[in-house]
């Protein structure tokens, strides 16, 4: 399906989804409460069948976080980007690891580096930093006077 057809389909499934212009793929913005039902629909729907989650990351915009999901379909070969805006003071979002098993380790990495809590995750703890590390390193306000030499 082309980008326009995908946009029409997404608006059909979730009327409150908003889109961002520019970029090679469709960028969909939804709110955290709608995440669980939306991703279930895009996985099961016969015309969409997005069964391959290939990138899960988070971007720190200083006032809020954007959790970014990149999906692809192995049958139709279309891709799209899903972005969810969450609050910076108390970052929480539902997990998608029951639908895509690859999200288990990807979400642990996002928790480790940004501090975003994924609700109902089977095993949420630090992955790459030592277990007793304090702080969330990839946030923009992470201070480390010994090591960080600001250019």
């Amino acid at each position, binding site marked *: 399906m082309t980008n326009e057809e995908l946009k029409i389909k997404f608006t059909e499934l979730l009327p409150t989804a908003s889109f961002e212009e520019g970029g090679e793929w469709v960028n969909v913005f939804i709110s955290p409460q709608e995440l669980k039902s939306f991703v279930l629909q895009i996985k099961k729907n016969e015309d969409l069948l997005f069964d391959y989650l290939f990138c899960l990351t988070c971007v720190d915009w200083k006032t809020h976080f954007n959790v970014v999901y990149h999906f692809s379909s192995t049958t139709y070969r279309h891709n799209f980007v899903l972005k969810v805006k969450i609050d910076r003071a108390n970052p929480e979002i539902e997990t998608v690891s029951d639908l895509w098993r690859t999200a288990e380790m990807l979400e642990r990495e996002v928790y480790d580096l940004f501090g975003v809590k994924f609700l109902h995750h089977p095993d949420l703890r630090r992955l790459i*930093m*030592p277990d007793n590390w304090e702080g969330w*390193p990839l946030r923009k306000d*992470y201070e*480390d006077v010994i*090591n*960080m*030499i*600001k*250019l």
Partner: protein
Amino acid sequence: MDVTAKNNFPGQIHETPGGGIMLSKLDDVINWARSNSLWPLTFATSCCGIEMMSVASAKYDFSRFGFEVARATPRQADVIIIAGTIVNKMAPVLRRLYDQMADPKYVIAMGACAISGGPFFYNTYSVVKGADHVVPVDVYIPGCPPRPEALLHALITLQEKIKSGLTREQIKETSYLNP
């Protein structure tokens, strides 16, 4: 430095009919034997490990110098070649490996990352800026990654250091400052 002269057996050999008599200092003989059969510990964290594997293979062979038997356990190894970056999570592991090795033990820091943090010096929160913050180092090899010939040169330098018979502190004092 005249390398060939130093590889000969330390001492005098007097031929007699039916055999010979060997005169030497016991220290010299022990140092000669030790330096020609150092067993390295397989410790490679990142890219320099591939150059170390190249040195172990057929083109730049290091088993000609006695390093062939690479042990996997520190209890049986003499020299640890730190090839790769050391990060905060790995530093206690490195210290524990070094402590488990039996004396006399030697350390070679291979590559820019092990000398001083290398290309990961600025703006990183998790890299230890140099392996000598964790263990005392004998030989440093610059390069990113160093060529296999550079590693062979370092191994020969270590052998000469052992044959000279001095401790680390004595070498520091009698170094290029007072030759």
